[in-house]
């Protein structure tokens, strides 16, 4: 709300706000509470869902031992990876005594992406989060289980093993 205020008023307004900022801290909190919940949600939903690119954090949805990886390279595509693409990632969080350790560089297949992807019939599909299944260089999964839904497009990408391990196929 304060952001829109500054954008409406020019530099003068900004300096005014700056001078009043100490007093405003208390009031800003109350105004945030005044904003209706629906409006609040729309602010967050306006965030652009984009490609999986360098520094994108992804959830690992297999039992390889890694919990969170960060993309360091998309293997295909100029603008980044999408649903079904393979990425190179570095393990940021890992469970103790897993197959992969923190700091390792691994390959992974994006099995869920929040950005929508066109399907072969022209409709689109999108998921709740960005999730990855770790694979080795030959494309075989490191873990032995896959959690949550995966898209059937993986069949086209020749990741049949992931599809057979998956709980749900969307």
């Amino acid at each position: 709300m304060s952001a829109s205020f500054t954008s409406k008023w020019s530099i003068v307004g900004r300096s005014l706000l700056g001078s009043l900022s100490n007093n405003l801290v208390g009031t800003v909190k109350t105004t945030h509470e005044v904003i209706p919940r629906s409006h609040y949600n729309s602010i967050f939903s306006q965030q652009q869902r984009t490609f999986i690119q360098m520094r994108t954090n992804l959830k690992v949805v297999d039992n390889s031992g890694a919990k969170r990886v960060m993309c360091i390279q998309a293997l295909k595509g100029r603008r980044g990876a999408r649903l079904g693409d393979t990425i190179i990632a570095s393990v940021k969080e890992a469970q103790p005594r897993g197959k992969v350790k923190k700091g390792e560089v691994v390959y992974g297949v994006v099995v869920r992406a929040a950005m929508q992807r066109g399907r072969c019939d022209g409709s689109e599909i999108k998921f709740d989060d960005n999730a990855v299944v770790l694979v080795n260089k030959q494309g075989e999964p490191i873990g032995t289980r896959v959690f949550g839904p995966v898209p059937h497009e993986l069949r086209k990408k020749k990741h049949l093993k992931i599809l057979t391990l998956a709980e749900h196929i969307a």
Partner: protein
Amino acid sequence: MRLEKCWFCSSTIYPGHGIQFVRNDAKIFRFCRSKCHKNFKMKRNPRKVKWTKAYRRLHGKDMTQDSTFELERKRNRPERYDRNVAENTLKAIKKIDKIRVAREARHHSMRMKGKKAIEQQAAAKELEQSIHLVKAPAALQEDPSLTLPKIRVTVSRSQTEDAWKNNDNAGNPLTWWHRKLNSTLSYARLVY
């Protein structure tokens, strides 16, 4: 080929249309167009949005229980292909669709049955109560020449006679007001 239903508005989604959102518990939400998708993202309840099928069903606007809906129901039993069965089904679809449309029309007409009478009643009441907006009551009373019986007679003599003959409710004060209103309006037209 399967025709899905939109999660929000319950319209049919033909192949290649719309977007589907897969929640992490693998529930699939299909939307026919971006309008429905946006409404979902705004966390609107389709039962509270007036243009959706869910609202119309809930509020008795549409037919809900009917044997014609049985054909369109989703069945989880696979059917062995049979040419004769397929042919008969295609014939039946047309027939059942016709019946469904007719029943829906009947449902609509039943629902709208008393509407015209209510509307007319309301209009009559409004005319009775707010005639003073058109003509001041004091002016009507104090100067009968303002009501212009002369013009009323000249303009609408034949009409009134016809009306007397044809209309049963010509003696109704309501129709009398109508005529008076017409005459005053025509008088106004003459003046200006």
